[in-house]
């Protein structure tokens, strides 16, 4: 077998020390990393198994009302935490729309943030991929690219970030807490992932040895709880990555929008925060015209990277829909088919 070191530290400090070795990778539940290793897409020299770090498994509320989610909290545990789901319903909905029940039971918060793209050319080691092997080229550019990016892509890479969870997180100004050899630091989730530019092999601002230890949702994000949705268009009704997804949150006062949050998934190498659209919405009447203008603003710079021009009108429609859904108010109960356009249909619901 491919020999690699395996260590299982007991503390964060030990883990960071262990990961200082060249070629080390942190292993949480491995729902993505182990697949990548089996496919020879990545070959870490050392796995630092952090699943023993119990301190990273807690969901806590701090004095200022921020909610701090340990990096090892399982996706399902977070989504089904009643208090969390009540305060951040779009985040819970996004989590429950991802992958399958089995994967959500295993996958962790930190792992979700760092999952790799699903671009088939990244996984296929016989294909050229600048992300996998810097400078090798991009076979997706002229290949099967109907699912690829329409925002923020470069000639070097047109891959998308597949996370659902990250979309509402970036919309609601989540903060990522990082520990590393040089100590502790924080970045906004929006700043965690990098656009490809000429260096698509660099996907995040993390430097070797750094570990995500927690994600924090600011207390202020609770203001959107009454008007927050995550909607996801996909080629089958569950267990599929987003063709396009949208997180929308509104604060409504006297029928008009006091504040708006909007982000897109499935369209770029990072979860795509649409700040200009948010600014346009603030102070407007919550009506279709405002939503359409916001959608146009969010997609002003969108352009196809291949056989994917349809994603732009699709994203536009989805933004309008998500804003409408947010306007109507967060459903009292989590839809049986979370994030689905069909989630409002009674009588035909199934567990996702």
């Amino acid at each position: 077998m491919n020999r690699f070191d395996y260590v299982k530290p007991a503390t964060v400090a030990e883990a960071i020390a262990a990961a200082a070795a060249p070629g080390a990778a942190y292993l949480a539940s491995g729902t993505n990393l182990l697949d990548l290793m089996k496919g020879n897409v990545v070959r870490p020299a050392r796995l630092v198994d952090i699943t023993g770090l119990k301190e990273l498994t807690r969901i806590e509320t701090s004095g200022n009302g921020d909610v701090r989610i340990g990096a090892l909290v399982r996706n399902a545990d977070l989504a089904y935490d009643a208090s969390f789901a009540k305060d951040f319903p779009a985040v819970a909905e996004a989590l429950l729309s991802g992958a399958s029940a089995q994967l959500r039971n295993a996958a962790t918060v930190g792992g979700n943030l760092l999952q790799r793209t699903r671009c088939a050319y990244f996984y296929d080691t016989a294909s050229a991929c600048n992300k996998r092997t810097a400078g090798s080229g991009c076979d997706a550019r002229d290949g099967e690219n109907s699912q690829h990016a329409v925002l923020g892509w470069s000639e070097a890479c047109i891959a998308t970030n597949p996370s659902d969870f990250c979309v509402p997180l970036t919309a609601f100004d989540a903060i990522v807490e990082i520990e590393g050899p040089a100590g502790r630091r924080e970045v906004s989730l929006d700043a965690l992932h990098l656009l490809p530019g000429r260096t698509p092999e660099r996907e995040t601002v993390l430097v070797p040895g750094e570990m995500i230890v927690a994600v924090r949702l600011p207390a202020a994000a609770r203001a959107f709880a009454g008007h927050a949705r995550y909607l996801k268009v996909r080629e089958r009704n569950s267990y599929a990555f987003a063709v396009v997804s949208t997180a929308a949150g509104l604060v409504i006062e006297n029928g008009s929008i006091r504040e708006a949050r909007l982000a897109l998934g499935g369209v770029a190498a990072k979860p795509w925060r649409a700040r200009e659209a948010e600014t346009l919405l603030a102070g407007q009447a919550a009506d279709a015209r405002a939503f359409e203008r916001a959608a146009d603003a969010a997609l002003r710079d969108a352009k196809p990277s291949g056989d994917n021009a349809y994603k732009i009108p699709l994203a536009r429609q989805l933004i309008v829909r998500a804003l409408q859904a947010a306007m109507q108010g967060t459903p009292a109960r989590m839809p049986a088919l979370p994030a689905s356009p069909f989630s409002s249909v009674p009588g035909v619901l199934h567990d996702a």
Partner: protein
Amino acid sequence: MTPELNLSRDPAHIRHGSNIGQPLSRVDGLAKVTGRATYAADNNPPGLLYAVLAVSSIARGRVTALDVDAAKAHPGVVEVMTQANRPPLHADPDGKPNPFAFRFEALQNDRVRYANQPIAVVIAESLEAATEGAALLAPRYEAEPARIGLDADAAYVPPAVGMGSPAEERHGDVEAALAGSDRQITAVYETPPHYHNAMEPHAIVAEWQGDRLVIDTPTQGLVMMRARLAELFGIAPENILIRSPYLGGGFGGKGLMAGPQVLGILAAKMVGRPVKLVARREQLYGPFGHRSPTRQTLRLGANAAGQLAGIHHHARIATSSFEDFYESAAHLTHTLYAAPAIATTYDAVRMDTGTPLFVRAPGIAPGSIALESAVDEMAAACGLDPLAFRVKNYAEVEPSTGKPFSSKALRECYTQGAERFGWWDRPLKPRMMRDKDGFLVGWGMGTATFHALMFAGQARAVIRRDGSGVVESGAHDMGQGAWTAFAQIAADSLALERDQVTFRAGTSDLPDAGIAGGSAHTATVGTPIHNAGAAVIAKLAELATSDQRSPLFGAGNAGVIARSGRLLRRDDEGRGESYADILARAGLDQVEGSGSGMPDPAANEQYAMHSHGAVFAEVKVDPDLGQVRVTRMVGAFAAGRIINPKLVKSQLIGGMIWGISLALHEEAVTDPRSGRIMNANLGEYHVPVNADVPAIEAFTVEEHDPFVNPLGIKGVGEIGITGSAGAVANAVAHATGFRVRRFPVRISDLVRAGA
């Protein structure tokens, strides 16, 4: 006609049972859900080594270098088998001894003919070592441009399609019929390559015991595979034992022997130890067959009243560069709708892929979605309801041959299916229905059809001294429920309760059960079981009626009845005795009989034999986002005698789900430059998940068929797909007013169309 068949059709001795027709749960269900059922790869004989395939990443060219030294140097690697050192075979893998022997790769040379073709086998003490050894081979290639896609090469007319059907078949003058029609449509439909994607991957555990070969491998055709292996390894068939008690899905993918199984056996020979070889998921997309992509052109003509005048169904299909297999996608058009002129034609291209082979409902599945879509388009052109149009063009006899049907309860399927679905409330025009949430609602239907086949098969039956029975036939359970259905037929064949009969199947040393394919297995194996039981009862009756000490003495001419382990005088049921008593008095430990079955050539000459059905589907489509959800399906099927209604319902529902898949999900995405399949995994090769599967109702209508075979069985394994895929596609068109003709229907299609 065999004596057994005579006996069973007009029996002197009658057997009574009530096991057939009971909705029994699977007899192997408990073993499967508790993990006690051993599938091929669950076997671990002492001394086992692990073999891993190294496969090609190019689709066409030559392997110029393999780093065998690096692989062999890896700890745990025992041997690396390449074209330079693999043990000889007795027959050429590229030979064609019979039409069912398909050419395969067993490292016979350095050529690469498709991506994922095996190019070496690494054998090691552990799976991990073999896997890493295979990675270390780092093959180098001399690549040639891959030919991928239905326009990749010059098209030609294939010599034959399917299993020997003509590539051009014309009844009546189609061109004249079309030219003279009031209404004409021409439409082109495309279906992508499909892979079987059985849950259980292909696997083999092979062990040589001197000249004797013992293998565990999933197969839908034990005796056929044994014969092929005997020829390839130059040993007698009797020296090969294949064990295949359970298959984790077959779908045609395990019907024929494939190259990797031969490589597993060669590996075991090379190292002199048992070897296990399991194909990884992505390796299943190559050497094990798939469904050819199709591009089908349908031309239909009808008069103003909606009576079909002519149908021309042309199919462009693909085969591999080195083998001929042609998906008979157009052929069902000869059997379904009553048009005076029908023509089917084909052309084909060679591609650098593995050879396309049998996939569930070969030919019919892709042909059906195209024909049913086209019929819907024609109905619309005539301003008729799709069901009314189909009924108007109902074929009372098989259209192309003029033969009567052996049985055909399709009209009842239409009526009962439409009733249960509520079809007659359907607005004629598309895009007329919305639900209260604003989703577009559409209703579509399709006619299901599949030929009723049977193959030659054999069985053996025994009644033992204690009155219990044993019935044996090398049948195959792919998950469809063969263990259960045959146990039911076996019990009735001996007029015993089911728990008094031991049924044995799943190994190659049992009587030949043919192949579990063509939806024919129940007829193929049920008939010989039925006849073997009859033969045993006849022998018991002979013993009793010729013995003066028996209460049945002298009943020979009147005959006897077998019921519940006893023989009774037909003319006086008060007189009789038990099987055990008959055997005891005769001083016999057991009495044995054998039975066979085969299709009746006279009946096949006289009658067209098909199952039929009608499938109705409701879909909802998001008008802005193009996402589709099937919300309701009803399927009514006529398939002759139903042995086990519970299993049959499962088969039909499974087929209908496959139909949803064909219409909305399944597609192997091939990079046209490299020839590699870019979604060779179950995460991204989409098949429906629970959320895609609505409330499905599947039921059978009464149908008695005295001609197909003695038991009147027509088969239900594949028909559920047909009709269903078209019903879903037609429902999408009815919901949106937009006809997608390239399957599967994608969100991008509906967004572009402004769904």
